């Protein structure tokens, strides 16, 4: 993996979380992102250095609200969570253990989580335990990522459940679909990681339930409400995408000698390499830009600018791409439509459609 270290340069590797993995799975064909993530490059810092900072920021109001809500659910050894789970699952859980995995210090958290989960899976007695701040790991494209689910609950109906605490509201039984979908994708990453761990320990991975517990504020108050979310579909998508994801070693093979995305800082904390050099290095690895990147990837503005530079129809979104039947360039598509370009092989059909669309348009605006 020393090649990956070269790519990152002499700076600490950046770990990526479940949200990043879920986003990665959303665009598995992007070699640039795969490679930067695998090498642990700080994409946010890289984007800022090349002059295309990501448009993401978080309001302190939202952060405060999230923290307040999470501590409300977790306070007193997850007492509130216990009440919610009793109601939700109709379980006669009398007592519940509480283990804060964070108590051992960060460097031991992963192995401590591993030992605790191993013991829990072995023990046959039916006592419930909440594991707070567990640390799981998942190997993605030959690279280990560490993940921090909010809480892992065991044993409710004999299985492990991932508990995800989110501060968006459920109003009259409904929440914003995009937010629920994002939470489900994120939770699916945890389920996958926990299953991988159990399998590695020689236990049945199916001990981890595909129903995750989503805890959100109810209506306009701070009172939490729990719901079960079935993440089987997200799991299937995630598994397929991760398997399809271009293997990092294959990506490494094609790279030019000496390529690096190093952000090594000088004494003042400013990266020693010029922005131009870094941008040049980034351009050596192909990206696959889509407007969805704007919500997920730190490098989105850089890649969008690049796509604009070459007049790519990727800029207009997948719906437009679908209509253009795979014609990837603006000039090419317009050339076909306006009849100044001869259709290439396999383009006869789409060319006919575009020419017809162009004729109809001219007729209507004339």
């Amino acid at each position, binding site marked *: 993996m020393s090649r990956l270290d070269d790519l990152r340069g002499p700076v600490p590797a950046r770990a990526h979380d479940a949200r990043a993995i879920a986003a990665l799975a959303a665009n598995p064909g992007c070699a640039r992102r795969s490679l930067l993530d695998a090498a642990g490059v700080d994409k946010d810092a890289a984007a800022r250095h090349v002059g295309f900072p990501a*448009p993401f*920021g*978080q*309001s*302190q*109001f*939202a*952060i*405060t*609200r*999230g923290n307040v809500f999470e501590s409300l659910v977790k306070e007193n050894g997850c007492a509130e969570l216990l009440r919610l789970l009793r109601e939700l699952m109709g379980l006669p859980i009398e007592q519940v253990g509480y283990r804060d995995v964070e108590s051992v210090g960060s460097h031991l958290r992963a192995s401590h989580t591993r030992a605790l989960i191993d013991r829990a899976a072995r023990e046959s007695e039916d006592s419930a335990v909440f594991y707070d701040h567990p640390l799981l790991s998942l190997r993605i494209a030959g690279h280990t990522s560490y993940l921090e689910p909010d809480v892992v609950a065991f044993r409710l109906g004999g299985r492990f459940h991932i508990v995800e605490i989110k*501060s*968006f*509201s459920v*109003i*009259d*039984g409904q929440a914003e679909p995009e937010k629920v979908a994002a939470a489900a994708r994120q939770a699916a990453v945890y389920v996958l990681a926990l299953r991988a761990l159990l399998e590695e320990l020689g236990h049945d991975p199916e001990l981890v339930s595909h129903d995750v517990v989503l805890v959100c*504020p109810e*209506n*306009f*108050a*701070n*009172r939490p409400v729990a719901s079960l979310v079935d993440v089987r579909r997200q799991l299937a998508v995630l598994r397929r995408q991760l398997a399809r994801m271009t293997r990092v070693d294959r990506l490494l093979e094609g790279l030019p000698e000496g390529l690096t995305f190093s952000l090594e800082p000088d004494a003042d904390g400013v990266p020693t390499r010029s922005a131009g050099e870094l941008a040049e290095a980034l351009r050596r690895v192909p990206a696959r830009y889509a*407007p*969805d990147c*704007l*919500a997920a990837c730190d490098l989105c503005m850089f890649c969008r600018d690049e796509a*604009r530079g070459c*007049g790519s*129809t990727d*800029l*207009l*979104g997948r*719906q*437009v791409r*679908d*209509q*253009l039947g795979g014609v990837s360039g*603006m*000039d090419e*598509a*317009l050339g076909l*439509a306006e*009849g100044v370009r001869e*259709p290439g092989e396999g383009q*006869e059909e789409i*060319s*006919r*459609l*575009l*020419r*017809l*669309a*162009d*004729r*109809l*348009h001219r*007729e*209507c*605006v004339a």
Partner: protein
Amino acid sequence: MSALTALARLRAMREGTAQRITTVRHCHVSDRPMVFVPVKMAGEAAAPLGAMVGTDPDHPRLLVVPQPRNRDLRFAFAAELAEVLLPYVEGFQKATETVERKGGEPYERCLEAPQLLVPNRPAAEFTGLLGRSTRFRRADGPYPVHPSVPLLGRWLTYFADRSRQPGSSLLLAATEALGAHWATGQSALEDANLAALLGWIDPPAGTTGQRAAEEAEDPLLWPPAGPATDPGFDNEVLAPAVQAYEEAPTDRAVARVAEALRTQLEPTWRLMWRSVELLRALPEGSRVAGRWEADRGSFTRFVERIAEGGPPQARRDGAVGAAARLAGLERARASYDVQRAYDDPLVMAEYRLTGEAFAGVVTAVEPEHFEGEGRSRKLRPLVTVRTDDPVRLAPGAAVGSPERRGHGAEVVEVVEVAGTGADGVSGAGAGGAGGGPVEVVLKVTKGMGRGKTPAPGAVPEPGERVCYTSLTDDFQTSAALPDPEETPWTHGGPPEEYVPGDDDAQEEWE
């Protein structure tokens, strides 16, 4: 998305400016709309920070919640919003017209209706949430609020519900209204930014749409149009101002929050009125007035419901109510799509592209063609239309025409025109399903009058340019649904009658 719109987006990208995708306007724009630009606190479902609202572009009213976490201040905000919105809405209730209807009692309908304009879809949703969090409140009991608050809640809920109805213009989101008429050279996701969208449509002199849109993405130049605020603004400007109010709730502290919010709301306020101007400048489609009439009818019914003392809208629909709402939305969608196509050749072109419509020149007419014998002998004029469009209509298909209301015809046959290679029309782009032009023989079945010969003008003349389509906007009866009391057990059985209780009125809003 059709290939036509995709092509328009490509052109917008090349030209650097937005392209029209309609020839007319398909939404109603009121002479006196009310613009409402709300902002909410990040991380909260429905905690208002403030709003800019009003009917006069030069005199917006700025409403502010100096400490958005304070429940009393939120209700004070709601009461203030009610002060602006309710008189506006009530102003349309007095003047009515009597509408006669076939086989029914005549009824009254308001001559005009209010129109609320918000920047984007999330603002429309937020309007609904504000309505949801205020409509169950009471002026008496343990947590009394100003009597106008629950009424405001019902109106906001009504507007938000109505905005989900295709073709309704009672509440319009500016980005959606503009996006329905222009295609930009960016993605639909980026079009949700009002400043960027307007940058493409109406770039400042000396710059391209693309440049203007790029500038619009800088939150310092163009604050987001809400309801979410810019996180940088929250952290650097708003939070300290709210903190100062928390420490000393003086008028000065309130003014500081108000000024902070004004910087965020004013640019959007101006963009909203610019959007109104741009939309007004488009010629109105001929069926817009009819849809607005339906809006006026809906508005009148809701006024009556409130006057009769009906309960606030339930939290959730029952099974029958939900099915009826869904069926209604589907009918509205289908009808809106057809009406737009009939009003607008550029929308109709999308159906010509898929073969559901065709346009061409009449080559032959047999106006006194009859079918049947004796008493069942019927006038069925034959019309032959030559078209280059790829017709995908089978013999027997019923078609209508945008040029003639009430006119109906049936496809008799579609014949390929032989020997067209010579005139150079054939080849890519031109032609019927097989590639070349076709002749469509139609028999007219409706809209000829009762005489032995067709009424003048009822049958197209040779040489006339016509368009026919299988899309029809015929009246569809509503789905047959049982009464709520008859809800079958498969759907949970008859629902309990919804009576808003004390719990609803006292619900926390923290």
